[in-house]
């Protein structure tokens, strides 16, 4: 049971740190993709295409087993957070970009006619509205991140799934252990789902 709680704690901290990183990356990449500067747009699009089409397991593998050969090495837990953030960031960027596309063009035009620069238009007018409209898609990404954190098992981080595996082998009681772990995940994902629904209603723009 202690092992189980330990696993849940690891899952939660992987998710939260990963989310902070992913959100930052997502914001930057999404602004790249709508910026008037072509090289930045290409960089953003390339990043999203590359990362989205690559399995997370392969990213973990590349980062943990491949990059140390090129002299790039981080401790285990930060590595997991970085990989999760890099991967999830691409999905966050796509969600935010779809939100930016829903903001009426008139908003950006109005902001520009007031003499705001691109950064101001994006940061003070468009993004605040865009983010409100993508709470639900971002929430889906967040829940996917909770589940994806299990793949940190690639680099031997023993979170909830890994802990279940260890326990099942040790106790030879596979069904209760795996069911317990499944329920623990539901306990993590369901409240997140409710919280996201609440947040969505809270920040929704009444039109």
């Amino acid at each position, binding site marked *: 049971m202690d092992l189980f709680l330990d696993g849940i704690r690891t899952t939660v901290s992987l998710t939260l740190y990963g989310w902070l990183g992913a959100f930052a990356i997502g914001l930057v990449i999404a602004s790249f993709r709508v910026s008037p500067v072509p090289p930045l747009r290409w960089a953003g699009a390339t990043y999203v295409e590359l990362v989205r089409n690559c399995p*997370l*397991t392969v990213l973990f593998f590349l980062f943990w087993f491949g990059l140390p050969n090129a*002299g790039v090495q981080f401790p285990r837990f930060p590595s997991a957070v970085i990989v999760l953030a890099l991967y999830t960031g691409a999905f966050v960027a796509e969600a935010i970009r779809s939100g930016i596309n829903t903001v009426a063009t008139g908003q950006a035009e109005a902001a520009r006619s007031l003499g705001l620069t691109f950064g101001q238009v994006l940061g003070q007018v468009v993004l605040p509205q865009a983010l409100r409209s993508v709470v639900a898609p971002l929430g889906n990404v967040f*829940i996917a991140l909770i589940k994806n954190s299990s793949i940190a098992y690639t680099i031997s981080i023993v979170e909830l799934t890994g802990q279940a595996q260890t326990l099942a082998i040790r106790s030879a009681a596979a069904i209760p252990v795996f069911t317990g772990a499944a329920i623990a995940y*539901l306990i993590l994902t369901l409240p997140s789902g409710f919280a996201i629904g609440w947040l969505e209603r809270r920040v929704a723009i009444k039109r």
Partner: protein
Amino acid sequence: MTAPLLADALGPRGRRRTLIASIVAGALLLAVLAVIVRRFQAEGELEGDKWSPLLDPGTLEFLGLGLLNTLKLAAAAMAMAVTAGAVLALGRLARSAPVRWGAGAVVEFFRGFPLLLLLLFAVFGLRSLGYDLPLFWSVAVALAIYNASVLAEIFRAGILSLDRGQSEAAQTVGLTYWQGMAYVILPQALRRMIPAIVSQLVTLLKDTSLAYFVQYTELLRRAQLAGNFDRNLLQVSIAVALVYIFVNFCLGRLARRLEVRQRRRLGAGAISVAGGPEDLVAADVDR
């Protein structure tokens, strides 16, 4: 959308500024790339003998078989997932309430926790209980169950997207519920869902790499073996990542092509699958 939405038709000063910003940004990106290449060079990771094993026929065959295993796994899982997903979706739309709740519970349950957990259970859990399935099939079944519950939601959205007039018309001409489904609803709904199903295939193909954890020798596991043997894990993992990216990129393109073609054929506005295509695309976020 190439024309950036937030800054249209710039004047001469704006154009100049954009040009300067482009040059600066381009230079910065090139600098980042250069740093990476230098790093690789300094550690001797660009030398020919690290990369040449990748072109060795033996290695190629070894990795090729891995790719073949990956594709076989994806195909078997997809076939099962589509069938099971269709059954679950029909269950969720059934008229009898217990069937609806049952199917709903199954779908929500299996979407609620990581596929990896299900996979470990299917392989090690069942083995410890004395059921000894072949490895390929336990992996395929785990992948299929998870993806069936995701596909069920896609199917349901597709069926619900049809105008109610269709099922009403089917009833009016005297078809039973199931005849109406089979001859009127499903043929139309399936056509609308094909792009979403193809994008789900991308997710499934990515998920097959989880078989790595249970020692099934798909592409990634074989890459590890080859990389350990030739001492070029970095090079092999880059190559494998590129293979996945290439295959998935092609599938993604195919999905988009199908979607555009359909939009043209059904006319704009006819494609809306339960609140717009974004809803279905959101399903591929769900790994």
